[in-house]
């Protein structure tokens, strides 16, 4: 029987690249979507507020796994065959967007009202208020929770293994299928995830503390 060797370990470490890449795709796509949703949530136009709220409620009330199945199995049955990586990237983007939208809405609303009033008095229009006054301050508030949420994103990419995308978890299954040492293999896989996520968790905590000291 095949033993778990350094070859397997290196294979798993290399597979972690795909986990990182998928996380990056999800963060960038979800970031753009999340910003649009956050701005929609605090918009003065009621229709936009409603659409953004409905979207966030809908996505936050559905499991990521079901979104994955919809975009992979569902769309292919409906005639749109997506690659696993595209389907995973798409559903993670949809999912991450909803959560970032809600986190960032909180950050925008955390900017004191007086900042809005002061920039009104200076004669800035709504767009200028956002770009010069509100968003720069909101970004500062948003940094810690966003870094913290990145941990969730990295962990959630593990679900892409279920539709057959060979990232870290799927690679673990493949190695396990040849070595039959699930305990060792999945502990190793877990350790790699931990090595990616723990620094992010610590960074989030440090950033949060720094923000509070600065106040």
């Amino acid at each position, binding site marked *: 029987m095949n033993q778990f060797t350094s070859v397997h370990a290196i294979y798993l470490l290399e597979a972690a690249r795909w986990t990182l890449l998928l996380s990056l795709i999800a963060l960038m796509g979800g970031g753009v979507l999340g910003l649009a949703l956050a701005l929609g949530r605090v918009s003065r136009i009621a229709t936009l507020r409603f659409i953004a709220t409905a979207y966030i409620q809908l996505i936050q009330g559905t499991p990521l*796994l079901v979104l994955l199945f919809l975009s992979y199995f*569902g769309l292919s049955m*409906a005639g749109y065959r997506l690659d696993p990586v595209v389907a995973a990237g798409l559903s993670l983007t949809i999912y991450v967007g909803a959560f970032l939208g809600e986190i960032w809405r909180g950050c925008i609303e955390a900017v004191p009202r007086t900042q809005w009033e002061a920039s009104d008095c200076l004669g800035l229009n709504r767009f200028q208020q956002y770009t010069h006054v509100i968003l720069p301050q909101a970004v500062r508030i948003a940094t810690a929770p966003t870094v913290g949420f990145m941990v969730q994103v990295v962990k959630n990419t593990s679900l892409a293994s279920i539709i057959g995308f060979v990232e870290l*978890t799927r690679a673990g299954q493949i190695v396990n299928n040849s070595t039959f040492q699930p305990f060792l293999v999945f502990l190793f896989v877990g350790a790699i995830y*931990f090595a990616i996520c723990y620094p992010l968790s610590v960074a989030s905590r440090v950033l949060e503390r720094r923000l509070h000291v600065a106040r």
Partner: protein
Amino acid sequence: MTYKFDFSFLAERWPAFLEGAWLTIQLTVVAIVLGFVVGTLCAVLRVYGGGVVRRLVGGYVEIIRNTPLLVQIFIVYFGLASVGLKLSAELSAIIALVINVGAYTTEIMRAGIESIGKTQLEAADCLGLTRLQTIFHIVLLPAMERVFPALSSQFVLLMLASSVTSQISAEELTATANLIQSETYRSFEVYVVVAVVYLALSFLYRFAFWLIGRLLFVRRRKLGTAL
């Protein structure tokens, strides 16, 4: 290519969806109750325990919160089986979910316990309460009241995440859906229906937690004020 939506399978399959939802409710309610007990215990140990215990609990929380649930489920199900401890899929799912939600509950409850004012503890001391009595009668309920919104949204997230247990063929809603779609070949429609059922479940859970909060936190109900 034009695609015709066909939800006709619902006419005879809808009881299966409800059954799946019921299985998910059973699975997650057990996991949430046990996870809450584990988490609260760990939170108390994390705040009032000795140095070693504190560090152990801290390690548990960090390890669980920084690894994916799916990998934890695989370790419990496949890992334990390979060292001779063969558990059923459902039992493995519950164990993994309890370990997972326990870690999140620990962190949330810790924040709640640490937010209790020092004067409360001093007053309890003056009344001659022991450490344990203080924790039980003075600290825990107000601590829970403060973090209840975070706690309930974490539990809703757990309910949604429990869909992952379908991967070790534990019987719940997503597994039911997988079965139905493999028989009807209507995967898009089946997963749309399942998404709607999960959405309904998450509203149901949120309502249930709101109700529990109303019943549990008497002061908030009677005076209408938070702590």
